[in-house]
């Protein structure tokens, strides 16, 4: 009996994972272009304008690097082929933790005090939506974070604004996996 239950559960999990993979595959090569809309800030979030511009520019650059789409359009830009299936990327910054590079550097100099803790880390969290331009349906929605503060970022602690690039890389990775 136990063996049957085990076999059933293994079968079910394999089935579910293939179904999920199949669902992800349906978007592959479906969209030619992506239009990147400027992110908004959630009420009460003081996300600085320089970080916002850096986020948008980094996202455009990272999406271009993935070569997932024929054209990466900025907000308001017209596609070369007007009828081509296009995705719209929108986002709302829901959390911004300023962090401190000085604290991160200090953490590295005296690691026994704060090893592995998020003290001083810069974090940007945004709700990302990929929307089908033709139907206005949300195709993928995900909460994503860009952070600076990992030990791999070196003794200097990493620049706070570099969190925008981490977020952009995560968004581009998601786009290349799903589309």
């Amino acid at each position, binding site marked *: 009996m136990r063996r049957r239950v085990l076999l059933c559960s293994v079968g079910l999990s394999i089935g579910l994972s293939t179904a999920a993979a199949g669902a992800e595959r349906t978007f592959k090569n479906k969209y030619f272009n992506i239009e990147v809309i400027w992110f908004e800030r959630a009420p009460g979030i003081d996300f600085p304008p320089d970080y916002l*511009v850096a986020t948008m520019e980094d996202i455009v650059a990272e999406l271009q690097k993935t070569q997932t789409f024929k054209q990466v359009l*900025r907000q308001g830009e017209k596609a070369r082929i007007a009828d081509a299936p296009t995705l719209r990327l929108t986002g709302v910054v829901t959390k911004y933790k300023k962090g401190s590079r000085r604290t991160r550097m200090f953490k590295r100099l005296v690691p026994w005090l704060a090893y592995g803790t998020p003290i001083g880390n810069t974090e940007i969290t945004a709700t990302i939506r990929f929307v089908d331009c033709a139907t206005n349906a949300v195709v993928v929605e995900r909460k994503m974070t860009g952070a600076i503060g990992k030990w791999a970022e070196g003794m200097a602690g990493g620049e706070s604004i570099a969190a925008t690039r981490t977020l952009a890389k995560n968004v581009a990775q998601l786009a290349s996996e799903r589309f």
Partner: protein
Amino acid sequence: MVPTLLGAQVPPGVQRPAGGAQGQIVERPGELTLGRVFHIAGVPGVKRNMWGELAFTQRSIIFFKKGTQQALEIPYQRVQRVQRLTRDRQSVKAGAAVWLLTPVGLGAPLGTYLMMRKQKVDAIVFQYLTENGGLAGAVFHISTDGGARSRDWLERFGIAVEEVVTPARSPVNK
């Protein structure tokens, strides 16, 4: 045609600014040049923190990458918004160099001081339309004096510069 995009050659009519490379501000009739301007975001092919010169001419803003003729040109009529805010810069590379290059133990305190020391600069944020009508942005770090001078210059051409006050730490944005 005047290229708006970065990495493009400077158009024939535009002269590369002379001077200003050592962080000076050079103002001549019809041109304001700020030396040692750090690129933060928005210029393709130019890394973050790479420095160059920012020239304000009679009709556009031009960024010259260090040691090259490559530039970003933003004509004034395409500028949508300009914001100015105060930021801190840390000379991490200089500090690290002192750490590494001086005999063991001696450079550590000075290197650490240099790495931790914060210098107030102005961040200038431009939002503008590209040739294709797309909304783009660029961010540069310049000296506080340069920030004030560039604000005055842009206001002469009818471009308002918003002063953004960075809020104090709050429970939401700690």
